[in-house]
């Protein structure tokens, strides 16, 4: 099975063309970074991402995966910037040598909101889009099929390589390998563990290269695809409108400042 976190609930969001979702993600990122105030990110999260997660019926996984990534980052951000923000001047709270500044907290709020938006948007895309569909759609949109091959086959190779790494560890332990206590001699134990993994890699590469050539991977013919990716004129229009909105978010404040 692949390592991707795809949750197949078959919701309308899942049935969207992956390129549409990708364009939406990129547009959101541009908007959120172009208008760096925290409430912009908040609006996007509450107004766009959470409703989309509810429609896609993967609110639970989104909070779980997003939370696991974001919690340490946000906590550290608030602590670090709150206490040591270079531009911090107005003390909000003090205890001995430690002092929290309002500028630091505001900085943490602005940056934190953007990170939350960036992570939730990317995780939502990954949860609602099977990597195979994403790759096929991007290839149809002009991406080189070599990227699609590399990403899909890597995702499916990882579980097999994980079990190979376990097997190597067991095989060497079964020959008496014990991790020495002092760190310097531990480097010596590196070869029996990494050696088989890397040497095995070359045998695989030779065979996989042969198999790919045997399947016409090097051919310069115009590639076709077995499965058609769902699309609609509405989505095609949206794929033009969203980037325009993003560009506007960049240009308008600039023009505003000039006036």
């Amino acid at each position, binding site marked *: 099975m692949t390592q991707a976190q795809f949750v197949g609930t078959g919701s309308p969001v899942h049935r969207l063309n992956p390129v549409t979702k990708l364009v939406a993600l990129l547009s959101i990122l541009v908007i959120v970074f172009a208008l760096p105030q925290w409430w912009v990110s908040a609006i996007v999260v509450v107004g766009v991402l959470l409703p989309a997660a509810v429609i896609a019926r993967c609110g639970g996984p989104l909070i779980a995966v997003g939370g696991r990534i974001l919690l340490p980052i946000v906590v550290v951000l608030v602590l670090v*910037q709150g206490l040591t923000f*270079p531009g911090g001047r107005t003390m909000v709270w003090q205890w001995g040598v430690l002092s929290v500044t309002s500028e630091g907290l*505001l900085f943490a709020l602005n*940056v934190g909101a953007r990170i939350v938006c960036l992570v939730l948007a990317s995780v939502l895309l990954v949860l609602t889009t099977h990597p195979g569909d994403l790759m096929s759609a991007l290839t149809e949109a002009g991406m080189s099929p070599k*990227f699609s091959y*590399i*990403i899909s086959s890597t995702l499916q190779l990882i579980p097999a390589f994980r079990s190979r790494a376990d097997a*190597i560890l067991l095989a060497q332990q079964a020959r008496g390998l014990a991790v020495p206590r002092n760190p310097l001699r*531990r480097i010596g134990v*590196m070869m029996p563990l990494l050696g088989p993994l890397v040497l095995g890699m070359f045998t695989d590469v030779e065979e996989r290269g042969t198999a790919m050539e045997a399947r016409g991977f090097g051919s310069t013919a115009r590639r076709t695809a077995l499965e058609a990716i769902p699309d609609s004129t509405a989505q095609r229009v949206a794929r033009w409108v969203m980037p325009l909105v993003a560009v506007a978010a960049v240009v308008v404040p600039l023009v505003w400042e000039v006036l």
Partner: protein
Amino acid sequence: MSDQAPLDTRRSRTRLLVAAGAVIVVATYAYLVVAQPAGMADSGTTRAGLIAMAGYVIGAVLIAAGSIHQLPTTTIAMIPVAIAVNIVVGQLVAVLGLPVYLDSIGTVLVSVLAGPAAGVVTGILANVIWGLTLNPIPLPFAVVQVVIAVLAGTAARIGVFRRVYLPPVAGLVTGVAAAVVSAPISAFVFGGATGGGTGAIVGAFQAMGQSLLASTTLQGLLSDPLDKLITFTVVGILLAALPSRFLQRFPFAREHRVVTTAPLAPPPSPSE
């Protein structure tokens, strides 16, 4: 970007793409570090984050798009295996309890054997795979992989991997470069908080009066050089243990005599 264009225009197009990508990355870095946007000091409401993110991501995409077309099928088939090794090495290294990730051994191996272009694609796509499977945070750092791959490929070309004591030096240099290049993203996109431990170190430097960018750079300099030093050293040891049968199958490694292999045996003459 379909493969139909005749060979020569494709070759010039790939060089153009890679060059454009490189220029954008360098320009982004220069603007962020040299120009040091004034508004940074107040409340993080500047466009530095947008510039850092856009510049580095667009640059990485262009470089990857340009590099992929230079790679033959056998090299393309190597990349998934190399990325899988990248991701799985951490599992074995955890047994050793060393304070490093070593998550770019596959990328460096590809750069050294199949050349920087192959290494660049491996590194960038390893980042994308990480984003698709575990955590989107590394995605904007894709361009750091470009730096690692280019330096590894260059080191291989000038024969660093022929002497056992040179790879650690090249690793150190690469680690420094990686820390410096990744600092703007870490500072302007993530406010120095890409992870629990890294955030604390950034805080410490800021408490000592360093700017956010300087603090993230210093934090990078504490961890990346050591990680890359060990990565290059391990790759050097692994290369020395490779049979000549594997090595001579890589034109780049053969052409630049990346690892001193015995001179090629003369072709035999058929017995009558």
